[in-house]
């Protein structure tokens, strides 16, 4: 048994660790800012770069990809080396991975503020960054698999199964959802439209939660929790069952984001059914984590690291029960588009992802710097601040979500809406927004304590870039592929493991996509629906740029309360030319799908200039730059061509007179505005936006009021 000597790369772990902490603080600060903008709109600063619509995606991308992302890499690089008893395959790839990822984050923040966005949640970054992400992800994969191949530990520990599944699934999700056709360096359109785009987006979106926020963290939990508790994992068998069932079932659950929408019924039902079946596999992780602490519960009382981890795993269990409950149609009917969903997200994000990250950091940093944690007391205070923060956050959002939803749905005894003015429902929950921001502030202050604590810890310790290690060389012994030991066989075969995982995760997507794309009857055509005019297309792109989809939905559900308020409910065929779809996820403001023709042009002009002038008390930020910025019509030709290439039936050669049509329509709107006494110029961006808003929902011309009369 010859002992080989090598060293673990700790420097890369340190770098990812520092990045985790830095971006965590940044991401949470942005979160605090947007939370405050909702009750104090002056914090939009009247600048286009700092409106809620533009910076909300900076918050989501920062906390998911920068904070959680770097934490994943920190944990994977640290644990994988030791579970494989091998140094990372390539130091160069490690460096490329690290610096490439940080560069992506910086570029993301800048481009999002500038309004370069696809509008698709957690996939907002435009196509050049998408390519960069793919390249870096491949580098990470090569590095990870290279390490696995040169391992000195034959069998792959459960944490590595999760890392493998994470890597391959994120790759598939990212590539499929990012298939877009560029029209300019920072602008593209997805090849998918309407209902199909919605399905692909939420297959991606939900599985970003599954395979970026869950599976890698389960892998990290399987390493760091037993390490911190010094206890064995409760059940190897359970880890097998819940791993495979989780990665298989999770994929199918995407449509639960699209219940009561224009998505075909069968797809919605699959989403619900599989979300319910997901309870046990998810809880398998929770159980294995918590039961590993059998015999060590007395330690939890003393150790802040274990406290963080226990609450993290418990929050994971809560969120993965709430999720399936929210996937039931009747619950979803109340919760969709409200703050309830936000509450659900943040229990998972602050509780599971945040707390597990903190637990790992508190355990790992002292280890890396070969010292003790600077202050256990501060860590305990952080724990309580964070827990209190989560409670404030979640309970206020539960209250506001349910209140607003019930207000939307309530009818008077005479059969009209009790709260026909949407703004009234928003103003009712402003106090809850303040409480939520307080919760976030508490949570962030705990994190700042952690920053101080870890900084002092590092200062009092010594860091070694490379940690000497030794292990016997791998003895190649073939495992028998026999009943009862089949999984053990697979644990020794990383390539087969990768391939089996890949097949397993692809099944759900294929079953849901193929019929939606190929069976025409899933998206019934509506003859009167026609493509956007060039001016409306430009206006739509402005809507996307300003992030309007962050507060306004475009999806009227088949409920009487919604058709009373907004008009006929939304049909699949209306969205066939929507690249991307703009159904939205949240109604901080009203649904806009039938906005066309509801208000005169002049109302929209004045409203965008200053929303409070038309809606007193509105929290919507002002968009005065739309009135002064010239519309860039040089992009019209490229946009029409691109749209035609992805299936929108503009006539051949239309590009030649697209701008003529654009100008004619702009003139007509500008004249109308001037007649109404508004000093409009026909070449400004506001004209395009008004054209788009006035077009919304008018194609089917079946308006409830018209029907009744």
């Amino acid at each position, binding site marked *: 048994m010859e002992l080989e000597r090598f060293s673990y790369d700790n420097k890369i772990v340190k770098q990812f660790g520092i990045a985790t902490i830095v971006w965590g603080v940044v991401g949470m600060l942005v979160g605090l800012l947007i939370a405050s903008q909702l009750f104090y709109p002056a914090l939009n600063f009247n600048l286009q770069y700092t409106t809620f619509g533009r910076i909300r995606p900076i918050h989501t991308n920062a906390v998911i990809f920068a904070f959680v992302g770097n934490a994943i890499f920190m944990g994977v690089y640290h644990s994988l080396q030791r579970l494989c008893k091998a140094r990372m395959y390539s130091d160069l790839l490690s460096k490329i991975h690290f610096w490439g990822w940080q560069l992506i984050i910086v570029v993301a923040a800048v481009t999002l503020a500038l309004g370069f966005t696809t509008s698709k949640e957690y996939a907002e970054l435009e196509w050049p960054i998408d390519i960069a992400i793919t390249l870096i992800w491949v580098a990470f994969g090569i590095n990870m698999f290279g390490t696995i191949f040169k391992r000195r530990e034959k069998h792959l520990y459960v944490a590595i199964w999760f890392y493998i599944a994470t890597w391959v699934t994120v790759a598939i999700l990212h590539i499929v959802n990012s298939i877009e056709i560029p029209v300019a360096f920072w602008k593209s359109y997805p090849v998918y439209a309407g209902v199909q785009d919605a399905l692909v987006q939420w297959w991606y979106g939900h599985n970003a939660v599954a395979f970026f926020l869950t599976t890698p963290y389960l892998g990290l939990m399987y390493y760091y929790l037993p390490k911190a508790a010094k206890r064995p*994992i*409760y059940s190897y068998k359970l880890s097998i069952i819940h791993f495979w069932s989780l990665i298989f079932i999770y994929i199918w659950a995407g449509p639960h984001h699209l219940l009561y929408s224009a998505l075909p019924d069968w797809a919605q*039902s699959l989403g619900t*059914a599989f979300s319910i079946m997901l309870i046990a596999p998810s809880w398998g992780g929770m159980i294995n984590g918590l039961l590993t602490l059998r015999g060590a519960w007395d330690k939890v009382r003393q150790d802040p690291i274990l406290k963080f981890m226990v609450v993290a795993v418990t929050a994971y269990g809560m969120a993965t029960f709430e999720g399936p409950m929210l996937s039931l149609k009747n619950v979803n*009917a109340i919760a969709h588009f409200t703050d309830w969903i936000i509450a659900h997200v943040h229990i998972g994000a602050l509780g599971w992802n945040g707390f597990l990250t903190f637990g790992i950091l508190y355990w790992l940093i002292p280890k890396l710097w070969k010292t003790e944690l600077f202050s256990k007391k501060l860590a305990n205070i952080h724990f309580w601040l964070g827990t209190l923060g989560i409670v404030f956050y979640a309970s206020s959002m539960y209250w506001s979500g349910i209140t607003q939803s019930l207000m939307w749905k309530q009818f*008077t005894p005479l*059969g009209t809406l009790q709260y026909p003015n949407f703004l009234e429902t928003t103003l009712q929950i402003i106090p809850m927004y303040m409480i939520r921001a307080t919760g976030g502030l508490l949570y962030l202050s705990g994190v700042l304590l952690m920053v101080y604590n870890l900084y002092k810890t590092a200062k009092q310790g010594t860091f070694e870039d490379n940690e000497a290690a030794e292990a016997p060389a791998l003895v190649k012994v073939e495992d028998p592929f026999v009943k009862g030991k089949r999984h053990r066989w697979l644990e020794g075969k990383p390539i087969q493991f990768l391939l089996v995982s890949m097949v397993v995760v692809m099944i759900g997507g294929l079953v849901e996509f193929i019929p939606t794309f190929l069976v025409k009857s899933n998206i019934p055509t509506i003859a009167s629906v026609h493509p956007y005019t060039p001016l409306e297309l430009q206006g739509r792109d402005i809507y996307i740029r300003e992030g309007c989809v962050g507060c306004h939905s475009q999806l009227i559900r088949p409920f009487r309360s919604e058709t009373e308020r907004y008009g006929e409910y939304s049909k699949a065929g209306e969205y066939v030319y929507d690249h991307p779809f703009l159904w939205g996820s949240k109604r901080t403001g009203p649904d806009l799908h039938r906005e066309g023709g*509801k208000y005169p042009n002049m109302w929209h002009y*004045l409203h965008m200039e200053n929303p409070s002038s038309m809606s007193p008390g509105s929290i919507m930020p002002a968009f005065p730059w739309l009135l002064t910025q010239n519309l860039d019509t040089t992009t019209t030709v490229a946009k029409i061509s691109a749209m035609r290439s992805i299936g929108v039936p503009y006539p051949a050669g239309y590009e030649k007179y697209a701008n003529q049509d654009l100008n004619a329509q702009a003139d007509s709107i500008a004249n109308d505005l001037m007649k109404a006494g508004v000093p409009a110029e026909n070449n400004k961006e506001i004209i395009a936006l008004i054209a788009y808003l006035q077009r919304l929902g008018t194609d089917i011309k079946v308006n409830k009021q018209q029907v009744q009369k």
Partner: protein
Amino acid sequence: MFNHYLQSIEGVGIYPIFSLLVFFIFFVVMLIWMLKADKSHLKKMSELPLDKDEDSDNNYSKINSGKTKQEIMNNRNKFSTKLGLLLFFILAGSSFSTLSAQTTQPEGITQSYIELMLILVFGITLMAFALLFYFGMGEKKKEPEFHPFSFLTKIKDKMMGAVPVEQEDEILLEDDYDGIKELDNRVPPWFNLLFLITIIFAIYYLLDYHVFKTGKLQAQEYQEEMHAAAIQQAELMKTGAFVNENTVTRLMDDASLDAGKNIFKTNCVPCHGPDAGGVIGPNLTDDYWIHGGGIKNIFHTIKYGVPAKGMISWQTQLNPKQIQDVASYIMSLHGTKPANPKPPQGTLYVKPQDSASAN
């Protein structure tokens, strides 16, 4: 069905009643268990040595020193009896008052339902009281190994299927992953049961909605909801509960005019000015009306709007009474002198001589 139920505010009172019941029962059960639990068992658990030599001040045997077991039992019995009485009154009182608050629910909860709840709560409280008395009174001759609800513990152990911590070494797997080891505990039976139940639910769900078509899909749910609403509207129409542009009369009372004034201030000022002198929309205080004056025309204009001209339809935002109020208020402004009045627009409105007209 369930969808409609949750969509209405009325009848939602069942939930607080239900949760009160759940909490109440849970609380009572916990209380009984706590008071009856084997004290020596609790003592043993709290004195489990912590890791190494951490806090050694958890020495519970120091407490209660000097008293015999019998004395402790007697004190406990007296205490638990008093506690039981106190709790009975608090719980009974609070549950009664909560439930009587529910009696103001006119729909969804019938009177008999509330009475049933009251009986149940009182019944449970009485039972709890009785149990406390039974277990709380008298002296115990010996200290039996009495674990109340020990059958629950047995069920729990069976459902967990866990090997006791003390016997872990028997199921410790050989692999060592950087110091992490794994146990070979079986997958908990309750987990398998849960998984099975959710799979059965999922199969049932898909069959119900898509094979047997016994479940209602969203389009059908919507149709039924609209149908029910149409029936309700038809009933209300018959009773004349609605005001429309054909039946509307001008209101003159202060309450309606005040309401109308508030509606005007909230909705009409941006276009018609704070004193109805006209800004983007016309002056509403003079004799000239673009779409006809008089209460019926004004009601009609507000309700349906004039989209081509920029006047919004308000019928989705204001109910008929509200439109009647604000129309009446506008009529009350006739002849007032706004600060910056727009010149007259439209045609001179002459009140019809027909005595059947509303004004």
